[in-house]
């Protein structure tokens, strides 16, 4: 299914991106090209710069050097990209549904359409019943799922997800992982997915990008990129699955 994607122009291209904060350099030389329907997972140790890279890819943070481009534009009822943040960051002064509607505001949708477009992803993450609640009355995992719904509601061409399932129980996580697999089939969306769960990365992605190599005097970078040539269905039971997970693990361990 990614074969069709390969022929169409990229939805995201990053060239030689370097990142840092006030004097310190944290990541250097990152390249990434993403085509429609592609799924890239980014893994690496805590603090290596995964969230920072994601923010830079989305254009929320200017890179020190290099270039990031998302050629897609907003359409009347979709956005070029959206993001699931590592912490849910819901607006506590908005009800759940209104939080999910945030990205729909400013698009050419009527109130009723906005409402429908918000309830749809809320149902997907199993929270449509809580649509009129205040965020503070939700558990951490429920808030994280609202954050996922908020990002899905705008039907992005590129979806950035920063450890979106980390606060969820195993069963919910499995269900939402499956939903992501289905989402890829249903839509054109390309996904950049940060996780520290290597099994999850290999389970979902076409490519797994390992960040590492950070030393006190040296910024981190891409140490290795793994292609995942396994079928999406029943991938967990595929004989190639466990060895690949081990390879990725080893790659992180070595850096």
């Amino acid at each position, binding site marked *: 299914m990614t074969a069709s994607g390969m022929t169409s122009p990229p939805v995201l291209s990053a060239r030689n991106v370097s990142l840092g904060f006030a004097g310190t350099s944290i990541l250097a030389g990152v390249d990434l090209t993403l085509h429609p329907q592609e799924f890239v997972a980014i893994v690496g140790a805590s603090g290596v710069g995964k969230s920072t890279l994601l923010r830079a890819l989305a254009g929320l943070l200017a890179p020190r050097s290099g270039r990031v481009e998302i050629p897609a534009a907003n359409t009347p009822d979709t956005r070029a990209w*959206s993001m699931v*943040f590592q912490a849910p960051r819901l607006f506590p002064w908005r009800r759940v549904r209104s939080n999910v509607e945030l990205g729909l505001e400013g698009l050419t949708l009527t109130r009723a359409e906005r409402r429908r477009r918000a309830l749809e992803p809320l149902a997907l993450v199993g929270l449509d019943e809580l649509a009129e609640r205040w965020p*503070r009355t939700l558990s951490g995992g429920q808030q994280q799922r609202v954050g996922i719904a908020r990002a899905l509601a*705008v039907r992005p061409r590129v979806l950035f997800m920063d450890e979106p399932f980390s606060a969820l129980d195993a069963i919910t996580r499995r269900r939402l992982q499956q939903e992501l697999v289905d989402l890829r089939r249903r839509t054109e969306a390309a996904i950049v997915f940060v996780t520290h769960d290597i099994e999850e990365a290999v389970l979902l992605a076409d490519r797994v990008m390992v960040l590492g190599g950070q030393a006190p005097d040296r910024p981190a970078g891409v140490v290795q990129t793994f292609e995942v040539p396994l079928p999406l269905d029943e991938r967990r039971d595929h004989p190639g699955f466990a060895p690949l997970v081990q390879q990725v693990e080893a790659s992180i361990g070595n850096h």
Partner: protein
Amino acid sequence: MTEGLTRAQRTLYSALGLIGFLLFWELSLRSGLLPGSLVPLPSTIPSVLWLELLDGIWFEVVRSSLSHYSVGVLLGSILGITVGMSAALLPRFNAAHAWLARLLRPIPPLAWIPFAIIWFGINPSAAAFIISIGVFWINYFASYSAVHSVGPGYEEVARAFGQQRFLARLTKVSLPAAAPGILGGLRAGLGQGWMTVVAAELFGIPGIGQRMMEASSLLATDIVVVYMLTIAALYATFDFLFMLVQRRLLRWQS
């Protein structure tokens, strides 16, 4: 320290404290412990209030105090919030006004009385002006620090979901996120307004303060107490009503 008491018990003790205080006051006067020229008998207050009401004086002075109170509070709040929020949101404006604000801030509202009289004359506008100054500073600082302390996290979410224009950020992030602090400032300003109302009227602008000065020059301490209680009641009413609004607006908080 109040955890040990039920709500009913607390009410009971509060009532007992107040009644005890009034009784002690009444008895001290009746027994001659306190000279009657210094303070009035509490038991005479209701009848004095009744007389002031019958004369229409009470309504007249309360109406005029309320009119410059509301103008002053409204003006001071609107300007204070506008300038405070602008300072927090616009770095250039913040820098440009910083020294001026530091210079003007320590001047107490009542120190503006001479200018109020020169600019407006002895009339309600002068009182409204004085009242607005104290209210302005309270709202200015409350809204400045409320907006200033809104973390960058919400702002980033707004940008990520296409709400990056100034007006969208203002109405969708800055205002709601800072609302608790801004409303707290408004409420404090409502109280501050009453403090300056009386003082602003002492130099001859009709209202509660002027009536109190009149009464004190006739040694009518009972009338003075009637208006002290009037101010307390007005303040409590405004504060209560505002609290209801505040609670409604901030119902997303715990």
